[in-house]
């Protein structure tokens, strides 16, 4: 089995992340799978940026600690990450800047000199680094050259050739001087087409698939790339993307459009979500469908904007004053983001209530290989379900908030002749007029609450069980910890230890009846969460009575290492 980690680092603002993505695309086109993780500070210039790209011949969901190829675009990259090197690691560096000390394979590439001789800009260091990396991995330049043609083709052949030259310089320097260090590690594999995408890009695609027609947002890391991706696509797919003045305007614009009949969603992180909370309650009482994408980052307040945490689960679940139904989904990887992202729009329409999709920086900004077949199948299977949304009412006397057995009333698209109603933020009668009477109030509260029961019976998906079902050791997690736990299970299995893993994506509402069978007595359950207060553990106990005592928590802004999860069992 091939499993190697390539890492590049350098000063912020010089295209490190883009370079990592180009590398990942090359590897995917070569027939391999990748998973990457970005580290960057909350500033534009001068900090330290890195991207780790994990490469494997089978699906990969997490990084590993040892770095096999470390490309140092500055000295800091070596200093900050040298503890992850092994004697077989390859370190690429510029000898005019520094020469690393230690036991590993050294490949000196004169980046500065190549730039100077060929009159290149600083950012082209990345292209040299890619050329050098491909040589060291025993690959050729064909795929990189094709990517450069795709990237710069519009600017004309001279620009393409200029960029290719830097790739060639890095490549041939390594070929010529380090032929003994070159191993043919990644021979071409004929596997199906794979797309390299982040969680945010997966949600963007899911939104297009689901026929979302309005996306509204205010930029906030780590959710911003949904705004920029969808904005760049809008003229092609006809969606409208509004960058509003604040998150309150964001969600209220979306609620207005949803009332008017189009699918609408918003995206933000914890701080922006906090501003939306009052309006989530508005969507709840007016029974307006709305999808809210929440990409968590470490709080409180501004916190650590570019790092990761699962710190807003309970906040999301409790968001909004008053009592109303709400559905919270937490995808664990890019495939689940695609599937549940698209499902969220159906649930919002069917239940006429807010649906929150919870992500975090790790899931939102990491990239993973997604097989083309997965997308083809998802697209073929996906149906736009609008539930009881109608353009003409069934009854001649239309009641917007009619009390029904399943809690869901017909939602008339405004404009139907001869009718009118209000989406009323006040408590209301069935016909939508304001009321403060006890009887109708009770009936409407009960009607709204019923949607929870209908959802649990109809659309709720129980957790998935991974690994050895009968194992006495069971990991429990939700959302983005999935990748590291699955990888930890593989590590443990190689060492002869079988484990099970219960992973939740449909995190709220839940019920005891459905969940209890996943937790038979007499096993060791370990709750793994990327926060300090075991929020899912609290939720699970509150909703089902299941109390997991043993917890593995991480809350330093970093995701779990699979090695740490595996070692925890010792």
């Amino acid at each position, binding site marked *: 089995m091939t499993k190697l980690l390539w890492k590049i680092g350098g000063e912020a603002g010089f295209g490190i992340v883009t370079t990592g993505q180009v590398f990942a695309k090359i590897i995917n086109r070569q027939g391999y799978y990748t998973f990457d993780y970005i580290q960057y500070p909350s500033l534009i210039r001068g900090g330290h940026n890195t991207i780790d790209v994990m490469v494997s011949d089978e699906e990969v969901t997490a990084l590993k600690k040892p770095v096999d190829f470390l490309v140092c675009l500055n000295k800091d990259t070596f200093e900050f990450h040298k503890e992850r090197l092994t004697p077989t690691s390859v370190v690429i560096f510029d000898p005019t800047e520094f020469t690393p000390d230690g036991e590993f394979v050294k490949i000196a590439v004169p980046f500065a000199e190549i730039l100077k001789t060929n009159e290149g800009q600083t950012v082209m260091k990345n292209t040299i680094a890619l050329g050098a990396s491909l040589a060291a991995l025993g690959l050729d330049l064909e795929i990189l050259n094709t990517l450069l043609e795709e990237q710069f083709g519009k600017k004309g052949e001279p620009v393409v050739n200029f960029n290719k030259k830097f790739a060639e310089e890095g490549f041939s320097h390594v070929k010529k001087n380090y032929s003994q260090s070159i191993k043919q590690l990644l021979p071409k594999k004929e596997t199906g087409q794979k797309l390299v995408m982040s969680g945010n890009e997966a949600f963007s695609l899911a939104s297009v698939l689901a026929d979302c027609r*309005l996306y509204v947002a205010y930029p906030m890391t780590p959710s911003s790339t949904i705004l920029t991706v969808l904005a760049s696509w809008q003229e092609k797919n006809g969606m409208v993307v509004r960058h509003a003045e604040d998150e309150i305007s964001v969600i209220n614009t979306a609620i207005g459009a949803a009332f*008017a009949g189009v699918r609408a969603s918003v995206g933000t992180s914890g701080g922006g979500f906090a501003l939306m909370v009052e309006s989530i309650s508005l969507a709840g009482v007016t029974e307006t469908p709305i999808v809210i994408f929440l990409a968590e980052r470490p709080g409180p307040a501004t916190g650590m904007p570019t790092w990761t945490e699962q710190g807003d689960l309970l906040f999301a679940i409790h968001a909004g004053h008053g009592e109303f139904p709400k559905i919270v989904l937490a995808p664990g990887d890019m495939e689940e983001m695609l599937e549940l992202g698209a499902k969220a729009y159906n649930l919002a329409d069917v239940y006429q209530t807010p649906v929150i999709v919870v992500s975090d920086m790790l899931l939102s900004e990491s990239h993973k290989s997604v097989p083309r077949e997965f997308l083809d199948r998802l697209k073929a299977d996906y149906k736009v379900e609008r539930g009881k949304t109608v353009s003409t009412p069934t009854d001649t006397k239309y009641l917007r908030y009619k009390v029904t057995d399943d809690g869901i009333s017909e939602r008339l698209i405004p404009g139907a002749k001869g009718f009118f109603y209000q989406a009323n933020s006040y408590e209301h009668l069935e016909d939508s007029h304001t009321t403060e009477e006890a009887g109708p109030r009770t009936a409407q509260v009960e009607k709204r609450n019923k949607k929870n029961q209908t959802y649990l019976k109809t659309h709720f998906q129980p957790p998935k069980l991974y690994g050895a079902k009968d194992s006495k050791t069971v990991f429990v997690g939700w959302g983005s910890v999935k990748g590291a736990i699955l990888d930890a299970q593989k590590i443990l299995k190689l060492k002869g230890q079988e484990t099970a893993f219960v992973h939740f994506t449909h995190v709220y509402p839940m019920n005891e009846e459905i969940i209890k069978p996943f937790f038979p007595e007499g096993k060791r359950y370990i709750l793994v969460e990327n926060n300090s207060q075991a929020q899912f553990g609290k939720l699970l106990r509150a909703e089902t009575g299941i109390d997991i005592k043993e917890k593995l928590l991480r809350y330093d802004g970093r995701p779990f290492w699979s090695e740490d999860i595996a070692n925890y069992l010792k």
Partner: protein
Amino acid sequence: MATVQDFSGYTPTWCPGCGDWGIGVAVKTAFSQMGLDPSSLAVVFGIGCSGNMNDFLNAYAIHALHGRAIPNAIGIKIARHNLPVLAIVGDGDCYGEGGNHLVHACRGNHDITVIVHDNGVYGLTTGQVAPTAQKGFKSKSTPGGIIEIPINPLALTITSGATFVAQSFAGDANFTIEMIKLGMKHKGFSLINILQPCVTFNKINTYQYYLQHIYRLPPEYQKNSFTAAVNKAVEMNQEKFPLGVVYESDRPSFTDSIPQLKEKTLFERERFENLESFYPEFL
């Protein structure tokens, strides 16, 4: 054609003598005179005595959160730019809680008509001071007199990019009808600030007070001049209230500037099916 009666819902619960009665009649009459019916337009109400018109007016409507009517209205307009969309709000609602939305709606020239009930107080919460109250106004929340100077809604919206700014007086229903109709006919963001006596909680800005301080803009007034409009607007700082269209200009509206809305409304267009066309970005 729909009549005023067709637009009439519940009997209003406003205090006897409240300026809102005049505005309520003017709104319904304007709709009727424009040939609209309750199914052919969308109205978003704010929270306050003004917003309580939700139950008194028949239309497709959102009774919004306090301060948030404007973004709801913008959302409706983006989805259905062929529908007339109005926001009926109060001064505390629109100039206080939702002030940020007002400024940015002007910038975007969103094609909505915002009708503001400007009475200088928070009537529904029993008379605390509003952002349009004159400096020194004593209320339950400002027993020593308000320290802040009043917001100038005309100057604020004109300088923020609104393309139609008018003012009327709730005591003059016919003039208010005309202003509402002109605002609705205008393509782009329109604001109609309606001076509205609150007979219960504002003993300063009464009908008599306004009759002494208002005047109609003369026919020769150049409403297309930005400088003249700003000069007129700031007269309010001296308690001189011009009535009429203070400013009107021509700039493409938000939805008219979106290429993907050229052919059809966002609601009416076909579903986009070619998801695969985005895949090359990921290869």
